């Protein structure tokens, strides 16, 4: 075979080409355009060595363009680069001013926002009403295919009254508008139009406390303090967000001093981190509600109220929290948490009572027990699913766990046939801290997530959605929550807790909406 000899002689050349090709593409990092031109970024700590901070996230940034983002890591990082129209108080969760200094409803469907006049983007351009309008309009543009569209789809139009005033018109009265605008980052219209939308991803320019320096894809993002930030100079001069997918590695990074702060840890890590005097474990209750959802509209046993009653009485959330979550969760009374608008501190709740569970089954004519289908997907904590299965077993209910992948799971529960099974476990979060983002999609007749229907409930949540009157909304949600409890549509068990690990000397408290604003972080004196 002479052919082999040819290949053999060309071998070294082939290897050389490969090496050259490799060398040509080794620099995957995106250089910062702002590094050369940004007039605003000089580190500001006087004399002392620059203060730097390293944060381990579970994921890499997918994009810096706020209009195109839908993963949490991107959100955590870019919100340090861009300013938001509104913000939340880190302690109370109350909506407060950011770029908008004040706001008021002009009518049931129109809001007016007064904007700050002293805000500049990192390239020196001023931030005006044009930028605010552009930031919303591009999300609403169908051609842009924004994954954020659903959050802003109630907005009909954004009008510029003058360079420092915008008016937002909604299609119908929309009380959750302000909560959604907390999620709105302002992007520069001039820069984006001149450089193209892709520039917002590869070389983002914002007006926030940090400016973009470098993105090593799959590895880390580096930011530097914006020395002329309108809220003051940030404490840390540089910050690096690292993508570390393995939880055990994030813990090791904390212990070895590689990282100052690590996100998305679990109760299992708390013991190990607490034992290290150099570290501490900041935690915060989130707005996610862990719940058991019933298929009220299905043909299955759970369609019987007595069966749902038995399930609710058989579950002991306190035991689950202590045994599986190391106590790291806060029990709730309802499908909302105390931080949600619409939360009712006096709502009726369920309690653990195995005897009552057995009696309920007997009333349903199922004294010898029954079998339920428990639909789940690997993305949910399977330990909790199995523990609930065990608690149901104790009162004579056999829960058959059916595990499918996430898209199949979503397809099943969203199907109009309601044949997904009897019960499911989930943790619901709307990032809006409002009952409208929780009980409306989960229980309103006709919502794709809903396997429940009650005209009185529909009237209550529709009414609450259609008015800007806070006290009226509160009363309507009180009614809605009582109906959910009477019908046993779901069992809200606890509020999940976000667990972080941090250097003991880092002064920072996590927030209910799981923000990572580096501007709010500093070292303890």
């Amino acid at each position: 075979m002479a052919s082999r000899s040819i290949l053999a002689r060309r071998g070294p050349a082939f290897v050389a080409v490969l090496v050259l090709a490799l060398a040509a593409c080794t620099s995957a990092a995106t250089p910062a355009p702002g590094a050369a031109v940004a007039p605003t970024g000089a580190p500001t700590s006087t004399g002392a060595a620059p203060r730097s901070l390293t944060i381990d996230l579970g994921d890499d940034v997918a994009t810096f363009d706020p209009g195109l983002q839908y993963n949490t890591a991107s959100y955590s990082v870019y919100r340090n680069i861009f300013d938001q129209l509104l913000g939340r108080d880190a302690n109370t969760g109350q909506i407060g001013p950011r770029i908008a200094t004040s706001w008021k409803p002009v009518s049931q469907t129109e809001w007016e926002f007064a904007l700050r006049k002293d805000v500049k983007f990192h390239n020196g351009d001023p931030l005006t009403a044009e930028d605010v309008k552009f930031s919303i309009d591009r999300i609403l543009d169908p051609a842009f295919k924004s994954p954020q569209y659903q959050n802003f789809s109630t907005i009909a139009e954004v009008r510029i009254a003058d360079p420092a005033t915008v008016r937002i018109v909604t299609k119908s009265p929309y009380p959750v508008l302000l909560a959604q605008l907390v999620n709105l980052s302002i992007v520069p219209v001039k820069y984006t139009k001149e450089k193209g939308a892709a520039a917002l991803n590869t070389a983002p320019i914002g007006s926030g406390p940090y400016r973009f320096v470098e993105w090593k894809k799959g590895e880390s993002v580096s930011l530097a303090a914006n020395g002329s930030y309108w809220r003051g100079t940030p404490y840390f001069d540089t910050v690096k967000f690292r993508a570390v997918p393995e939880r055990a590695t994030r813990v090791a990074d904390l212990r070895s001093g590689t990282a100052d702060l690590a996100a998305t840890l679990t109760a299992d890590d708390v013991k190990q981190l607490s034992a290290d005097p150099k570290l501490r474990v900041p935690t915060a209750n989130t707005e996610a509600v862990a719940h058991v959802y019933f298929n009220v509209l299905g043909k299955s046993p759970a369609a019987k109220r007595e069966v749902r009653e038995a399930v609710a009485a058989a579950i002991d959330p306190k035991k689950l929290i202590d045994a599986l979550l190391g106590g790291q969760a806060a029990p709730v009374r309802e499908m909302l948490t105390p931080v949600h608008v619409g939360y009712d501190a006096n709502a009726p709740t369920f309690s653990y009572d195995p005897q009552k569970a057995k009696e309920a089954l007997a009333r349903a004519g199922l004294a010898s027990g029954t079998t339920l289908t428990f639909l789940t997907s690997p993305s949910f904590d399977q330990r909790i699913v199995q523990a609930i299965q065990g608690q149901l077993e104790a009162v004579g209910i056999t829960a058959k766990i059916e595990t499918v992948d996430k898209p199949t799971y979503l397809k099943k529960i969203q199907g109009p046939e309601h044949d997904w099974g009897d019960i499911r476990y989930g943790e619901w979060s709307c990032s809006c801290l409002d009952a409208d983002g929780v009980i409306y999609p989960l229980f309103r007749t006709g919502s794709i997530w809903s396997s429940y229907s009650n005209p009185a409930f529909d009237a209550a949540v529709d009414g609450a959605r259609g008015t800007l009157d806070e006290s009226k909304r509160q009363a309507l949600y009180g009614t809605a929550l009582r109906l959910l409890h009477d019908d046993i549509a779901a069992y809200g068990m606890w509020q999940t807790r976000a667990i972080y690990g941090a250097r003991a000397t880092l002064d920072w408290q996590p927030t209910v909406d799981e923000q990572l604003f580096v501007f709010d972080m500093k070292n303890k004196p």
Partner: protein
Amino acid sequence: MLRFVARRTLQAVLVVWGVSTVVFLLLRLSGDPTLLMVPPGAPAEAIDRLRHQLGFDQPLPVQYVQFLVGLLRADLGDSLVQSRPALAIVLERLPATLLLGGAALLLALVVALPLGVASALYRDTWVERGGLLVALLGQAIPPFWLGLMLILLLSVRTPLLPSSGTGSWQHLVLPAVTLGSLTMAGAARMTRVAVLEQLGQDYVRTARAKGIAPLGIVVRHLLRNAAIPVVTIVAIDVANLLGGAVVTETIFAWPGIGRLVIDAISARDYPVVQATVLVGSVVFVLSSLAADVAYGLIDPRVRTR
């Protein structure tokens, strides 16, 4: 000879096409990514709208033809998550994986070859037993456990090496050891067997009779002959290294294609998964081609035949 090259190239193209078709079908069978991309509570019409924009409402054959046409133009579509060309994303991350894989392979061979040769030459002594034990451990210890233990011992308890990330040669050590351990074990065992087989051959006896020093026999005669099966194993092991990179890169936060594909699979980012598998299969095809080349370099008989 041109026919041989053409045939090998055609084979390679067929392999890559076959792999990409299988991946295309498997991904579509595993569910619709649109549902994962919308926030909880999204209305049905919004989901349908996004599905249409992404083209997932088209019949499967239509999607497949579009995929093939794109493939011919080296256009594998834009990432659903990053909104950038999928192939560019994968090629950006490939060097990190090749660096890690190369270092792991090098490390594995540096350990495995002397270990294998020594185990064969000092048969039935503690050297062989020790060598086999090391190989056995390398094969038996799962990489995710080895990786975490190395971090615990060498980064946390005794801070000698960084626990994650890139930037210096120190960053490369722990991931390369973790990834290379399995290859090391396989290559060491194969080397031992190959050397043992050669030891009984006539040419070795002749060389000994001529009075050549034992080390000279091993280096000049024996290793060359024993190398062929070892090269084969190593070439096949490139696939294992690419597969092992998934675990190793995740543990050590190494920015390669192994981690990229895991992220892409969990987000149902079809274009990126397709591009990664395609690039991976090209790397594998090239490495087996390189093994063919290596046969010729090692064994003059292959060249003259």
